């Protein structure tokens, strides 16, 4: 008899957490402990040799964090996951498990600014080269491949350009090259898009955003599909005895979760950007309502985009599912249930009007985050991208009049009311 396949909503609530065996607690216990006792010297040796599965030290694994890991792995339809302190830490763990000094990555030019800096500056200092290419052009990824390319990297939805990735097209390039396609799925969340279904091999998230969903807690996660052929000759670190973990061959020993085991036992263990158990608990509370929040974020964002498109004080609106948007067709293919809560628009009157708008909003929160339950608003030219010249801002897709909205779960008419009164003041 085949196993029953549980729906996405059920997995949001249950995957990765059965009631605590010791106490019967229904909610997830917070295992606020650094370390776990060994039954015996032999048990300790088995744990360190990875011959038995268990917890040793919370830098490597922790039962509360494990519940979050399994839940996100299940929601993405992946095989295994490794949580991290932040989204930045998660993508670093994924890429440093794939790449070493002298290796190469091909990445979308439209990546989130923090990611761009990590790859262009920090990875450059490690001797890992990154070529940034047009995110809309799979052939540009193909043409940028080098003999030591170890990953293709892109985002389901770019931020703040809101470009939608043709994941299947990039997957074909990655497959031909024998390297994994790594997709940052933060902006969509697994409710709106599951990149593994389109051929991605590794998914990373800033769990801080929609998965956590309440703006309380930092977190990140790496998920592997379990389908990448690590024995294709391009990844000897997966098939040869590990220098970092006394001779274990990760792919042979752990098969379809070998990448996650290597990321955990080598990259996480030695670099240490661990997620705290309390953070995992808070993020998991958020995930329990992901399937209820994402349709509302998406529906409100679309309604607001349509309203703003007809507003006299608005020059342009960018939302992937807005009729006539450049990415509408890709959005309908990859984001059939909604395009998330992020949209951008241009206030008539340039940077000065943008600043006046921001200063006039009443309950929309002016801050640098996305994916909160509350509506967030920012004027990138005067804040996140302020240190760049106007030309550099334009290259990053930031125009002087651009406002970015992260549409929350408030009464939609109230969000419209605040936008309208602030737009009116921006034109004075």
């Amino acid at each position, binding site marked *: 008899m085949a196993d029953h396949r549980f729906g996405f909503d059920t997995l949001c609530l249950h995957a990765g957490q059965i009631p605590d065996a010791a106490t019967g607690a229904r909610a997830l216990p917070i295992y606020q402990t650094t370390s776990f006792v060994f039954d015996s010297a032999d048990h300790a040796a088995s744990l360190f040799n990875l011959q038995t599965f268990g917890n040793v030290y919370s830098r490597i694994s922790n039962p509360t964090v494990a519940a979050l890991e*399994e839940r996100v792995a*299940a929601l993405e339809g992946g095989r*295994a996951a490794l949580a991290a302190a932040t989204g930045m830490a998660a993508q670093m763990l994924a890429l440093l498990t794939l790449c070493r000094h002298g290796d190469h990555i091909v990445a979308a030019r439209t990546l989130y600014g923090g990611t761009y800096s990590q790859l262009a500056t920090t990875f450059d200092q490690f001797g890992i080269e990154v070529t940034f290419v047009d995110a809309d052009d799979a052939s540009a990824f193909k043409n940028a491949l080098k003999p030591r390319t170890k990953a293709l990297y892109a985002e389901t939805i770019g931020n703040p350009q809101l470009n939608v990735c043709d994941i299947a097209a990039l997957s074909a390039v990655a497959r031909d090259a024998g390297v994994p396609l790594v997709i940052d799925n933060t902006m969509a969340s697994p409710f709106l898009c599951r990149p593994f279904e389109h051929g991605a091999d590794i998914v990373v998230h800033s769990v801080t955003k929609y998965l956590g969903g309440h703006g309380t807690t930092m977190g990140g996660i790496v998920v592997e599909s379990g389908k990448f052929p690590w024995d294709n000759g391009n990844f000897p670190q997966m098939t040869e005895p590990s220098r970092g973990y006394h001779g274990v061959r990760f792919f042979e020993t752990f098969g379809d979760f070998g990448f996650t085991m290597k990321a955990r036992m080598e990259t996480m263990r030695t670099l240490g950007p661990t997620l705290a158990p309390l953070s995992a608990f808070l993020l998991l509370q958020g995930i329990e309502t992901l399937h209820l929040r994402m349709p509302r974020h998406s529906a409100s964002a679309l309604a607001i985009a349509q309203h703003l498109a007809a507003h006299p004080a608005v020059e342009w609106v960018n939302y992937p599912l807005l009729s006539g948007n450049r990415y509408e067709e890709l959005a309908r293919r990859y984001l059939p249930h909604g395009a998330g809560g992020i949209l951008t628009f241009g206030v008539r009157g340039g940077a000065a009007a943008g600043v006046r708008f921001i200063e006039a909003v009443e309950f929309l929160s002016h801050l640098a985050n996305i994916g909160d339950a509350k509506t967030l608003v920012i004027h990138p030219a005067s804040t996140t991208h302020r240190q760049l010249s106007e030309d550099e801002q334009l290259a990053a897709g930031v125009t002087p009049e651009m406002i970015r909205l992260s549409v929350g779960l408030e009464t939609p008419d109230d969000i419209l009311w605040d936008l309208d009164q602030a737009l009116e003041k921006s034109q004075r």
Partner: protein
Amino acid sequence: MGRVDDIAGLRRILTQSRVIAVVGLSPNWYRPSFFAAKYMQEHGYRAIPVNPNAEEILGEKCYPDVAAIPGAVDIVDCFRKPEEMPDLARAAVAKGAKVFWMQLGIASDEAAKIALAGGLEVVQNRCVKIEHARLMGGLHWAGVNTGIVSARRT
């Protein structure tokens, strides 16, 4: 009965079985077969090594083949090449084992048919250790998607 690949069936096999003949068990601690056998030993199973080139592994005497094992065997667990599976299936049937288990990465339709015709249950392309850890706890701690959804206190 028959081919088993679902949670309930695998859990039943692992609950009812105690003696596992591990064909191709390596004496090297870093080999997957050694990982699996040591893990199963630690979880209350007897892992009998079938390896003509070793005397003793994990404190158990080695036998040159399945037929040479004295006493009953529940699972014949195979860490050998796919082409050896049909002969091993015949040996498992002759031994009166209950389950013919082919490890992760190993499958053989011919061997499965032989074992099924002999009244055995068949598992293929799964690791006995990974399945035990997935279904009885443990693998969850490694961040693996176990596929288990339940409100039962285990």
